[in-house]
């Protein structure tokens, strides 16, 4: 089908486009920006006047809860949430039930995702079997089955010998390891940032040093082995400094920050708000500012939603017993827009953090509008207000620390492979 998107403000960060242009799509691919390909005859025309037309967003961390946790969310509900949020490609961590450590499971997940015809799903396979941090999973087989990288989700590899071997093995094949930096002994039973608020509320803390210690091991081993590592969800000022130094020494490291970390601090826990029970914990104002600075100077490469849908019952418990996580797929774009506005960051720079940068980290054909790329496109209104609340979310997880917030920016149309998969 030929689609003509006209009069939109096209922002393609990778190709340095930010101007009013028309976009032409044929057979699921982008076939022209500005000028129509020869003989182009539109079957569908989308009027994008006063709207932004940008690459479909790429999310580095979105839990779909399948297989195993379908009472929390299903593949269908979460992929609908993705496209409603303008996200057209997402990487999902392996902490499902069973764990994504078998090629058959990955194939099934890929197959089921393709059947939906919504967002593209890129599984991250488990680095170690059952995420136990002991034996390596069959990385090569998993890659053949569709994994684009390997991860331990929130589980640490405590044994540095195993971590070393995992990096050597991954480096052998050029795979990227996605690691969450948290030293497991220091963080044991912790539920909040170890600081003023945890002390006042009597919550067991996770010190910032837990991130620094884990990062020190990961970065050093990455340097020794030459492995490509991606640090998922950085949370501390010290972490930003360490990544900056590692990059200067040419360690093959990239990293992201969760959108929650850019808006929340420990004080948002207030009177035990279980929606702020997150991993990593929300930290201090100083950390929050350092993370923004890290994004501005390129130390941090991308922003992820850390989408973690949780059923209502699992959040209905005292803070420490309430399940970890917040829904995020539908909030990624708007919360990035809000952050960019507050920090006076140009729109194309902000969008790069959720399009071509994460696509580059995953090594997937997404995140820009180059000719003959798959036509994955997000069209949104920069000036429309809406309220974040459970009724306005498609995700089965209604758990958000941002519930009640009035926010600017509304996705109007999402295309995947040149098909309109979401429209309001």
């Amino acid at each position, binding site marked *: 089908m030929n689609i003509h998107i006209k009069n939109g403000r096209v922002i393609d960060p990778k190709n340095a486009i930010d101007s009013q242009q028309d976009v032409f799509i044929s057979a699921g691919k982008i076939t022209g920006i500005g000028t129509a390909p020869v003989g182009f005859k539109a079957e569908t025309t989308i009027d994008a006047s006063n709207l932004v037309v940008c690459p479909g967003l790429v999310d580095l961390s979105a839990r779909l809860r399948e297989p195993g946790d379908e009472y929390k969310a299903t593949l269908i509900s979460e992929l609908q949430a993705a496209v409603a949020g303008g996200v057209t490609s997402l990487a999902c961590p392996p902490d499902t039930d069973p764990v994504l450590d078998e090629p058959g499971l990955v194939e099934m997940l890929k197959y089921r995702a393709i059947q939906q015809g919504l967002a593209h799903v890129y599984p991250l396979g488990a680095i170690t079997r059952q995420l136990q941090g002991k034996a390596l999973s069959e990385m090569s087989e998993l890659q053949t089955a569709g994994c684009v990288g390997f991860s331990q989700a929130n589980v640490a590899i405590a044994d540095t010998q195993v971590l070393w071997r995992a990096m050597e093995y991954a480096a052998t094949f050029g795979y990227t390891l996605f690691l969450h930096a948290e030293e497991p002994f220091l963080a044991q039973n912790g539920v909040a940032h170890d600081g003023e608020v945890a*002390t*006042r*509320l009597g919550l067991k803390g996770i*010190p910032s040093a837990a991130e620094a210690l884990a990062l020190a091991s990961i970065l050093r081993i990455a340097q020794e082995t030459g492995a490509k590592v991606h640090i998922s969800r950085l949370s501390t000022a010290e972490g930003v400094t360490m990544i900056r130094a590692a990059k200067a020494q040419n360690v093959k490291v990239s990293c992201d920050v969760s959108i929650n970390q850019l808006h929340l601090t420990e004080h948002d826990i207030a*009177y035990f708000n279980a929606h702020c029970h997150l991993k990593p914990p929300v930290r201090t104002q100083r950390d929050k500012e350092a993370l923004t600075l890290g994004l501005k100077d390129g130390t941090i490469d991308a922003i992820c939603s850390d989408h973690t849908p949780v059923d209502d019952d699992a959040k*209905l*418990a*005292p*803070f*420490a017993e309430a399940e970890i996580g917040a829904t995020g797929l539908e909030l990624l774009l708007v919360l990035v827009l809000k952050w960019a506005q507050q920090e006076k960051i140009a729109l194309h720079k902000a969008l790069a953090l959720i399009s071509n940068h994460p696509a580059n980290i995953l090594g997937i054909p997404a995140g820009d509008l180059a000719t003959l790329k798959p036509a994955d496109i997000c069209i949104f209104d920069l000036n429309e207000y809406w309220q974040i609340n459970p009724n306005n979310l498609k995700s089965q997880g209604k758990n958000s620390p941002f519930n009640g917030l009035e926010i600017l920016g509304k996705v109007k149309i999402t295309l995947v492979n040149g098909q309109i998969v979401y429209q309001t």
Partner: protein
Amino acid sequence: MNNPQLDADGSLRHLLSIDGLPKKILNQILDTAESFVGVAERDVKKVPLLRGKTVCNLFFENSTRTRTTFEIAAKRLSADVISLNVGASSQSKGETILDTVNNLIAMQADMFVVRHAQSGAAHFIAKHVPAHIHVINAGDGRHSHPTQGLLDMFTIRKYKPELHNLRVAIVGDVLHSRVARSEIHALTTLGVPEIRVIAPKTLLPTQVEKLGVHVFHNMDAGLKDVDVVMMLRLQNERMNGAMLPSTQEYFKTYGLTQARLALAKPDAIVMHPGPMNRGVEIDSSVADGKQSVILPQVTYGIAIRMAVMAMLAGGQNGGQTS
């Protein structure tokens, strides 16, 4: 952000934590308790303020002393009292906290006295009960134990009425102590000018000084010239491990002995929330000595709990006519 303990007009709806309660309300509770101290000395130790009301002691964590004093307090106010050790019943069958609470509300409970091992449990329950139900926190994790904090203030006021002129030391496991947190908030709110905490670094939470206290690691230095010594209980499970090497070493370095107490002011009082570990945090001669007010604390605890229940169920002045 609305204070979950107060009604829109600023009156007490739940008692969840001392943190966030205005001085006016603390004094009101203490003054109301004053009028209840006399009740215990009468032949008929009952007043009809809570007649027809049902108070439910909901203990998800075991306790004998606190539960008993709440029971006595409720009975002296003529309430019907149910005490449930939920730790041993529904919870082990997988029932959620809210299911347990809602079942009891369906049985017409009017007030819940809640103890739970998780910080924030009382806030959580208070957030989910209907408007006419009152919740009293009888201890949640490491967070708060407000009636203990209040009875401690009541005791201090009895012996040392000039609160604005006191030096108070809190000694022991502040890290895990909801009592310490409640005491610190109560003391700062009531205007006590110098509050010290004395403990090894392993038993102090991060940035404890932000609660408004001076930190001492040396017991002798910390006790110098204080008016009040508030000892904390050392939980058995902390005694031999990564927190502390041994009870013997702890007693040697942080145990309250007569010799150490002599460093405080001559008329200093010694307090302890109980139950005591004699020979671990406190020497028997001090616990039973003439400066100890540990048993009066228990007695006043009943008056404080009566005052809180009366204020919650019967309006601001606790229904007292003076």
